């Protein structure tokens, strides 16, 4: 494995990480390879000494997560002691799971709000179909003024449907991202259990 392959692989493993942090890590490893080359070592030897990109990414992501979860005390064990590193994963996992549930609940609430928008918008559009005779059941009222004229309601309805759909789309994207991180977290846990 040469340094480009190593750095590419590491970048793939770190793709979910904060962009600034990712860039810093990759720059630090690039500098590491340069210095090793200056010392007369070839890339294959250095990559073998560093471990696999996946191992490093797991350790580095754990550092980042521990910080995100507000867990400030270094456990001083990653890479040296497997029992404690398992403990670190579990403790970090609990703190992280709390944040995850909070985020998931918020995203779900926002998704529901987006759906409500779509439904409300659809109702406003339906009013414009005279055969349904919904005009008297639904009126549009802005600051006490009745603005239930068909054109306004059609425009508002279309805007709400589109806005709601966009909102749901964004939420689903964010939820998928969250789901991917759950999988990462479970992988880290499984790996910690395996290496015990």
């Amino acid at each position, binding site marked *: 494995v040469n340094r480009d392959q190593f750095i590419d692989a590491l970048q793939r493993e770190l793709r979910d990480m904060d962009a600034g942090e990712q860039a810093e890590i990759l720059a*630090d490893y690039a*500098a590491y390879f340069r210095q090793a080359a200056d010392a007369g070592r070839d890339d294959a030897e250095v990559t073998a000494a560093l*471990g696999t990109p996946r191992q490093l990414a797991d350790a*580095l992501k754990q*550092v980042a997560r521990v910080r995100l979860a507000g867990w*400030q*005390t*270094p456990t001083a064990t990653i*890479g040296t002691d497997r029992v404690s590193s398992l403990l670190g994963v579990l403790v970090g996992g609990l703190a992280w799971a709390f944040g995850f549930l909070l985020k998931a609940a918020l995203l779900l609430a926002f998704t529901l709000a987006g759906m409500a928008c779509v439904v409300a918008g659809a109702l406003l559009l339906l009013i414009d179909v005279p055969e349904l005779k919904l005009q008297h059941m639904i009126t549009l009222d802005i600051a006490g003024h009745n603005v239930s004229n068909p054109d306004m309601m059609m425009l508002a309805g279309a805007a709400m449907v589109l806005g709601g759909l966009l909102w749901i789309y964004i939420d689903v994207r964010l939820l998928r991202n969250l789901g991917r991180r759950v999988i990462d977290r479970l992988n880290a846990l499984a790996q910690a259990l395996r290496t015990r």
Partner: protein
Amino acid sequence: MRTRLQPGDLDACIMALLVQGDSELYAIATALAAVTDAGEGAIYPAIRRMAHADWLSSYLVEVNDGPPQRYYRMEAKGRDALANLLITRQRVVDEVKQALWGAAP
């Protein structure tokens, strides 16, 4: 024979080097890999972990040929942490001595 590190030792070793003066990743990693069983790959995550906890700080130094070089510096919190690590280790040694030989620590 390379020294087998116990939990906490890696942090203590890195900080012991940094107490003597600011240093950079490659120098720290190769120095420790030469005398301990810590792999070169274990050093960087440990350093980042300590930097996140504000035990260490880092700064970039311009070099003539190539991109700037990142140096690490001990912070007050790191000195406290190192002292705690060493005191805890000494306490264990004292207690074992006491149990084995009944000697006053």
